[in-house]
């Protein structure tokens, strides 16, 4: 599980309540592309929540309100990824859309500690048999049968 360097040695938990942030032009002006702790969303969250440490990945935000933690893990809204994160990463800050965005707790399937391994007894995923060849083989056999 990737986590920001400052979050090592700190408890990491999934958030339970959403937070709403208001991204304004000055957050965009001060942002640094490619830096998860200095991007638009990180600056806005740090300012809004007066957080000690913030780090933004492509789909998750890690927020520590103080030095002792815990670090809270949030899901970024797809609208924010599309309208803010992607534009900053593409060095197009003029396209970033200021506005109100809500960060939600991670959905049940993406929570920490969830077992993502396939369960016993289930067939493991592997390369699928090439159905087109099997189909062509049947066509070929049918042609021979007609002759």
């Amino acid at each position: 599980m990737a986590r920001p360097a400052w979050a090592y040695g700190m408890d990491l938990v999934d958030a339970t309540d959403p937070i709403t942030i208001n991204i304004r032009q000055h957050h965009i002006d001060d942002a640094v592309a490619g830096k998860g702790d200095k991007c638009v969303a990180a600056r806005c969250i740090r300012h809004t929540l007066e957080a000690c440490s913030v780090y933004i990945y492509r789909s998750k935000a890690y927020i520590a309100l103080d030095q002792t933690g815990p670090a809270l893990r949030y899901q970024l809204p797809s609208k924010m990824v599309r309208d803010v994160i992607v534009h900053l990463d593409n060095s197009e800050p003029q396209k970033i859309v200021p506005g109100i965005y809500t960060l939600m707790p991670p959905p049940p399937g993406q929570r920490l500690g969830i077992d993502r391994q396939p369960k016993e007894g289930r067939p493991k995923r592997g390369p699928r048999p090439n159905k087109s060849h099997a189909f062509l083989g049947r066509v070929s056999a049918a042609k021979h049968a007609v002759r």
Partner: protein
Amino acid sequence: MPEEEQDGIRSSAQSMKKMFDELILAGFTQAEALHLVSVALKSLFDTD
């Protein structure tokens, strides 16, 4: 109530409904989604 105000309320309600539907699609239960939407709505008023 003025028509513009009604439009504003309708638009906000639609946004909340959309948020609720997205949470259900993401795998939250109805109770969880309802709680999250209500907290999000409250925090919206706290946002400066």
